[in-house]
């Protein structure tokens, strides 16, 4: 490995910290403002909720394995899909991606921490508190109406189902306030990432020389600011409706149900890109390193990301093709939605261009990225189908849509995330994840994913709507639902492999060294795990791949950029 050739090591002697009893360790983590520790806490917190959200999904799949099943009651099923969606979006995907951004952005741009370390800690704890508040609804949701219950209004929480008339007790309040609180956390983190990237880059790192991961997180953070704010506003309006006699969404008093839909989806659709853009970021870092080539078309990749960012702000009503908008409104949102496919397609072609002519090493991170590319391709194409409004009149709100967006979120985002885990775990812990177990994880998850989500398209085409706790036999849905449920078993085993690998490798993994993948960005120039200050001396870069320049002084990148 080339780590010896990197001059950016060295260490700074720090005063000895407090003692090492578990209480003192805990205390250090709770009060920390270190971006790396906060990043790891985000990730650990999100992984915990990933397991919880997965259990909720499993309960739903058991119930739907056969028609007219009695595994859970309709009430419980409705809570499960509400909690599953809310948890996975707000308390798994967002925090885990924020966690990686927190950990990686300062390291990649040669900074010692985020721009606002204490805001960073505040944001994390707000997000964490939001998640706990949501789950406290299981205990306190029904308030005076009896035993506890979680919200059962769906993660879109369409009005007027959330009004006091239809949602008694406090479960909807828990949902609302949990999202409000964690939303403040998200906004704080977005501001922080923006400020960090804009003002904390090391010398020589112009915007055009930033790693793509930093660029993509910059765009993502800007979108969070624009997307989360309307959601926060809508939540406040909902609370005004419920407790202060407002009538924003109260249809019984002349309020508008569709206004909530607009508020929700002007958040909800950019949100999808808020989640997928960091996944793009991982792929844009991993694919070049394992193909041994520079990223193909860097400026175009940046432009495409910014393009996605802008266009995705104008596509939200494609979630609302069935609500009876005028034909020309529908046509407008068809056009914008299909237009997003263009920059997204450009990205896929550029990753392909990166692999083309390379020497591809199929280590676990790259395997997951290859999985990402295939699955994201299919997810994009089913997205084009759904963008065509008339097709959406049939397929929207059906299991086809459920399959489509799980293809994006699991097949795309989660695969990229797993790749990121295998790629950066050595940096975060100083130890390698076990490759053999990693391959088991990959193949089992791949099989489980395709069993579940490929076959899930079919009941949608056959007319099965989503969010039903049971279904009628004789419509040709039985076999597909059973296969879908069987796929879940494979996914569970795969996740167990992953979790075991995470824990076991922390203690027994092979030492990683600074630069196990022979990579090119600044994060690999410092020790694994990096010390609190990241870099003993702030590095200076001349190109997008500073470590390539060091490793290949005869042929450095800056000659060509």
């Amino acid at each position, binding site marked *: 490995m080339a780590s010896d050739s990197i001059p950016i090591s060295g260490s700074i002697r720090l005063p000895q910290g407090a003692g090492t009893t578990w209480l003192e360790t805990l205390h250090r983590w709770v009060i920390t403002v270190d971006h790396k520790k906060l990043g790891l806490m985000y990730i650990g917190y999100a992984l915990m909720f990933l397991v919880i959200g997965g259990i909720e999904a499993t309960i739903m799949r058991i119930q739907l394995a056969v028609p007219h099943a009695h595994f859970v009651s309709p009430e419980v099923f409705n809570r499960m899909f509400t909690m599953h969606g809310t948890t996975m979006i707000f308390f798994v995907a967002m925090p885990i991606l924020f966690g990686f951004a927190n950990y990686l952005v300062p390291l990649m741009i040669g900074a010692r921490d985020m721009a606002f370390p204490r805001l960073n800690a505040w944001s994390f704890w707000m997000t964490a508190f939001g998640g706990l508040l949501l789950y406290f609804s299981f205990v306190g949701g029904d308030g005076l109406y009896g035993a506890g219950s979680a919200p059962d209004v769906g993660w879109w929480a369409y009005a*007027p189902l959330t009004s006091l008339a239809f949602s008694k007790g406090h479960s909807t309040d828990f949902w609302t306030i949990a999202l409000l609180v964690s939303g403040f956390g998200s906004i704080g983190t977005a501001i922080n990432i923006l400020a960090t990237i804009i003002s904390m880059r090391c010398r020589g790192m112009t915007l055009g020389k930033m790693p793509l991961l930093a660029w993509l997180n910059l765009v993502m953070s800007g979108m969070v600011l624009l997307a989360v704010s309307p959601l926060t506003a809508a939540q406040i309006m909902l609370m005004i409706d419920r407790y202060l006699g407002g009538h924003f969404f109260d249809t019984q008093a002349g309020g508008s149900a569709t206004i909530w839909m607009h508020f929700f989806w002007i958040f909800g659709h950019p949100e999808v890109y808020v989640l997928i853009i960091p996944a793009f970021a991982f792929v844009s870092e991993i694919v070049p390193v394992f193909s*041994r080539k520079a990223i193909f078309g860097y400026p175009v990749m940046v432009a495409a990301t910014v393009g996605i960012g802008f266009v995705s702000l104008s596509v939200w009503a494609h979630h609302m093709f069935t609500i009876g908008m005028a034909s020309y409104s529908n046509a407008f949102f068809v056009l914008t939605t*299909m237009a997003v496919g*263009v920059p997204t397609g450009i990205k896929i072609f550029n990753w392909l261009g990166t692999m083309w002519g390379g*020497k591809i090493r*199929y280590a676990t991170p790259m395997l997951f990225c290859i999985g990402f590319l295939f699955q994201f391709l299919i997810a994009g194409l089913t997205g084009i189908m759904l963008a065509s409004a008339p097709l959406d009149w049939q397929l929207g*709100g059906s299991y086809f849509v459920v399959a489509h967006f799980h293809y994006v979120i699991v097949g795309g985002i989660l695969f990229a995330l797993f790749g990121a885990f295998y790629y950066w775990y050595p940096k975060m812990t100083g130890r390698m994840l076990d490759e053999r177990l990693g391959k088991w994880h990959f193949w089992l998850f791949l099989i489980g994913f395709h069993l579940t989500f490929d076959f899930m398209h079919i009941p949608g085409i056959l007319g099965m709507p989503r969010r039903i706790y049971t279904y*009628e036999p004789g419509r040709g849905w039985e076999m597909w639902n059973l296969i879908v449920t069987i796929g879940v078993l494979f996914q569970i085993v795969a996740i167990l492999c992953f979790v075991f690998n995470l824990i076991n490798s922390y203690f027994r993994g092979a030492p990683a060294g600074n630069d196990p993948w022979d990579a090119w960005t600044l994060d690999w120039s410092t020790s694994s795990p990096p010390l609190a200050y990241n870099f003993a001396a702030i590095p200076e870069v001349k190109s997008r791949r500073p470590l390539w320049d060091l490793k290949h002084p005869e042929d450095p990148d800056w000659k060509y950029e």
Partner: protein
Amino acid sequence: MQSLSLGMAKTRGAVAMQILLTLVSPVTAASAVPLSNSPGSTSIFSPVSTPADSIFGLSLFVLAVTGVIFAIVFTLLVYSAVKFRKRADDDGREPPQIYGSNQLELAWTVIPVLVVVVLFLATARVIHGVQDARRPPGTIEVKVVGHQFWWEYRYPQFGFVTANELHVPVSDPKQPTPTFLTLLSADTDHSFWVPRLAGKTDLIPNHPNTMWIDPRQTGLYLGQCAQYCGTQHAKMLLRVYVESRPDFDHWVETQRQSVAANAPQDASAAEGRRVFETTACINCHAVKGTVANGRFGPDLTHLMSRDTLASGAAPNTPENLRLWIQNPDAIKPGSLMPAMNLTDQEFDQLTAYLLTLR
């Protein structure tokens, strides 16, 4: 491929599309076929009405285009993943570094833009055709009111109200008699989705919508509520009976009649009527021609003309009817119909009365 070729016979390049379709989603195609003719089918690939038909045609076109894109990119990905893998005899040197190509970037920007334009135009045509259709003379008007968790159907042209089972006449393409549905909601959001007749349209309180169907084949078409509306969203099923014009006219005549004003012959039924009209039943249910005129629940005037109970949740048999009155949760847990605490005898009498509502 029976059902698919049926629809595609009208489309140019049918063979090419069929091949593509089979390539892209073999499972999908295979699954849609055997079901298309079965009575329970709710497949979007076996349309019998113009809106569903035009969506089906569009879906084949979009599938073909996306299928070609998929085939090209998939092949390129597989090729590069295999061809450019690191070989066992690798010399350890880095491959040539290529930073990009303006020509390629331009190509894979412009071509997708053109594809998007084509797809958009094809889509806009269908949107216009379905959404901006005019009502021809002879149109049947039905007001559909979504309730938690059942459907109310009002026929203003004929002056009666019924529930849960929609009857419409078959429409002759030469002289179409489509049915236009005005969609309203009494409480939360719902969505009317009978896949073989048309795409779904939501029923939103304070936000009337319209949709239309012109089924060209008689028969029963199934569907269900497609917008989450509360606890029993799953059993808010849709049944659309498409009948020949004489059958439909006969059905309309029957539905317009009031219940015979004279008391039922049977003593038990007569007693049941008294129970019905002196308990909370009439707060929610209406029986035309009697004192019962509640509107929160389904109109029961011609209850026994319906095949199912509880919005399609159970067949309308005397046993199910009695069970439904006695304990609605046994059939549809979470439904808003309360369990009436009556005696066994009263349940028998009530059932006997309801059985007379033909």
